[in-house]
């Protein structure tokens, strides 16, 4: 594996769980330290702490200091998520950075360790608001929205993993370790793609667009993005350009084969179609027959036909659709493994390395052997 012989101590709360999992998936040996009584039954805990081993040990109990010392002496990376305003304690990042010169310390907090709001409290909702993401999701005249499945913890997690490995690579090259600090707020900013550049370059203020695409027509028309279908919703847009031309031509061909009413679609020369010049009446005329057609097909039919016809567009999946997607099945993304919940299935490793998906090694909640920390310090294999 890529990170063979890399030991990671993960003491994190929800803001750091994915970071530890990424390192574990890449081959590191990750020990998750949890206070006794941690609820490990919740789906989020299990999803993001699989592939780690767990040590039940209360960080605030002085009796555990030697166990932590044994682990830290051998560790390469330590992930911590101090509470807002928390200083000191057995996993104080500055103290550990001084005490263990080869250890990469990674500190993940909602807002970073500097700045006027560094000690502000936040959960996923507030971080998605602070990072700008909520202002870009929802109806234009409605309430800003977050994605219902928490995201900011994962953005912090991916950035923490990048930081940890940047510092590890440097340590290997120079012998010098470092203290990595991660702001969840700042980590969310990349999710906005190029939207901030509109304001920076030209003073424009992009905002949420709801379920329609705006800003493409010089006559102010809006294009539908989400279409009701027989068993849910589809994503399709009347694009222009080369890709749009093929997609639109193929949609019409498909509708024709099915004997669908084409309306104005039958008369359009897609090679000359320019979505920037259409007004709302013209867009509505385009979309009416397509709407009627999509209403009669299923998400799976659309997925198959769009692929076959090289059309741009996907169904709007539910998790049930995702787990039965043949593409996901063919690549063996989900992994069923024995463990504390027999037959439990997890998202598998996120990357194929040299053509293989490295299997997850530990089911969620797998305990660390009692004598392992001592053996690690002694340099022996447990």
């Amino acid at each position, binding site marked *: 594996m890529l*990170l063979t012989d890399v030991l990671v101590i993960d003491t994190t709360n929800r803001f750091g769980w994915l970071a530890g999992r*990424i*390192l574990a998936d890449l081959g590191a040996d990750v020990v998750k330290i949890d206070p006794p009584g941690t609820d490990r039954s919740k789906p*989020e805990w*299990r*999803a993001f702490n699989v592939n780690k081993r767990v040590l039940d040990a209360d960080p605030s109990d002085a009796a555990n200091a030697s166990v932590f010392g044994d682990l830290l002496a051998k560790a390469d990376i330590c992930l911590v998520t101090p509470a807002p305003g928390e200083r000191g304690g057995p996993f104080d990042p500055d103290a550990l950075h001084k005490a263990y010169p080869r250890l990469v310390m990674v500190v993940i907090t909602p*807002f970073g360790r500097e*700045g006027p*709001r*560094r000690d*502000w*409290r936040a959960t996923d*909702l*507030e*971080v998605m608001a*602070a990072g*700008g993401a*909520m*202002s870009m*999701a929802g109806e234009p005249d409605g*309430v*800003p929205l977050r994605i219902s499945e928490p995201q900011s913890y994962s953005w912090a997690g991916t*950035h923490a*993993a*990048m930081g940890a*490995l*940047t510092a*590890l*690579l440097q340590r*290997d*090259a120079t012998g010098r370790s*470092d203290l990595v600090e991660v702001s969840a707020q700042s980590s969310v*900013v*990349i999710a*906005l*793609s*190029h*939207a901030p*550049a*509109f*304001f920076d370059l*030209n003073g424009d*203020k992009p905002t*949420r667009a709801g*379920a329609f695409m705006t800003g493409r027509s010089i006559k102010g028309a809006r294009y539908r993005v*989400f279409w*009701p279908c027989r068993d849910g919703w589809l994503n399709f*847009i009347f694009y222009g350009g080369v*890709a749009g031309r093929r997609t639109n031509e193929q949609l019409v061909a498909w509708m024709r084969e099915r004997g669908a009413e084409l309306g104005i679609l039958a008369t359009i020369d897609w090679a000359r179609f320019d979505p920037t010049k259409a007004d709302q009446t013209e867009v509505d005329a385009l979309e009416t027959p397509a709407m009627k057609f999509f209403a009669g097909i299923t998400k799976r039919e659309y997925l198959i036909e769009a692929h076959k016809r090289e059309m741009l567009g*996907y169904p709007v999946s539910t*998790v049930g659709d*995702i*787990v039965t997607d043949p593409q996901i099945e*063919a*690549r063996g993304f*989900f992994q069923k493994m024995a463990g504390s*919940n027999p037959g439990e299935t*997890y998202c598998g490793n996120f990357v*194929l*390395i040299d053509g293989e998906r490295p299997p997850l090694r530990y089911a969620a909640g797998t305990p660390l052997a009692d004598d392992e920390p001592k053996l690690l310090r002694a340099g022996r294999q447990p």
Partner: protein
Amino acid sequence: MSGVPQALDGVNVVEFGGYAAGPHAGKVLANFGAKVVHVESRDRPDGFRLQYPPFAGNRPGINRGGCFSIFNDSKYGVTIDLKKAEGIELARRLIRWSDLVIENMRPGVMERLGLGYEALSADQPGLVMLSTCNMGQTGPRADTPGFGSQLSALAGFCGMTGQPDGPPMLLYGPYIDYVASTLGTSAILAALVRSRRSGKGAYLDLSQYEAGLMFMGGALQDYFATGRETDRCANDDPDAVPHGAYPCRDEEWIALSCWSDRDFASLAAVMGNPKLAAEKDFATAAARRRHKQPLDEIVSAWTRSRTADAAAEALQAAGIAAYPVVSMAGLFSDPQLAARKQWRVRRHPEMGDQAYSFPGFDLTETPGDIVGPAPCLGGDNEFVFRDLLGLADAEFEAYKDRGVFG
């Protein structure tokens, strides 16, 4: 590009492809000291250069695109005509200079060019290569081209955004591409660790679809365990109530959440109505959930008379999680992002000053930086091919005369 020692000094990277998922990974590495060369051709420049706004001063131009520049700062830009055999040969020489190749073309394109991993690693066993595309390199739909904005729908993100009785919602831009680029960067770094330690390189096949599902881990785990399908629920949370966005003065919004009855008592006190927390309709989370509409009206009445900043400061002082809903303009005035130097202005030769975005992590002793603006198309041909690759003058001129830098 930087004179100050950085963590990834000595890491050389070549990028083929364009748009978001590949280039963003290279940008992060460049911000921490890697030398990253972005390869394009004059016939097929990176699609983000011209296909999407914004353009500096609203004047489109090959070197004026903000969509391209924001993902390509701190890199060198070269042009190679890969339709010419000599172009392929030059690309091979550039790759031999590198430790890492990043590509996000359709599966099979690099192989057809003779630049597949098997060919490249034959005489460069320590090479690391990341291939990232919509579906991954294998599987029945591996050849699917697609936009990240639409792939975000397939991976469940759009379906999980919106009101329960309304349509799915768009996320801005190719959201899922950045999930892939940040996960892919970790895989790259881990592969470089192994390559440096053992001399063994790695070929990394990253499906952007699968990467996105890592951010859906909780919902998928819940489905596997219980069969329950998580659906969009606006801003609701199963535990916290209230939990949402509320309107403030000047068309601003604030996000706030109460995770216990004690939190709610604090909120009621801040709103000047401490008795509210004891009322039967609001005393428990279950009661507050049942009376969500009147509760939201009470909270909104308080927030509406304040700016989002003032409301957030008052709530935070009382220990309640709260933050203004930061707009695109607000990102540039948010005091916390400013303290972190999230935006770093660099002067581009054609676009003028632009604020580039720094990643969400930094190293305390060897900090990263935006070490330069995004490159112009082919703007670093001379420096990269002469100085980094060491082409002799005659060689460089011969390539130039034969249109290899096309």
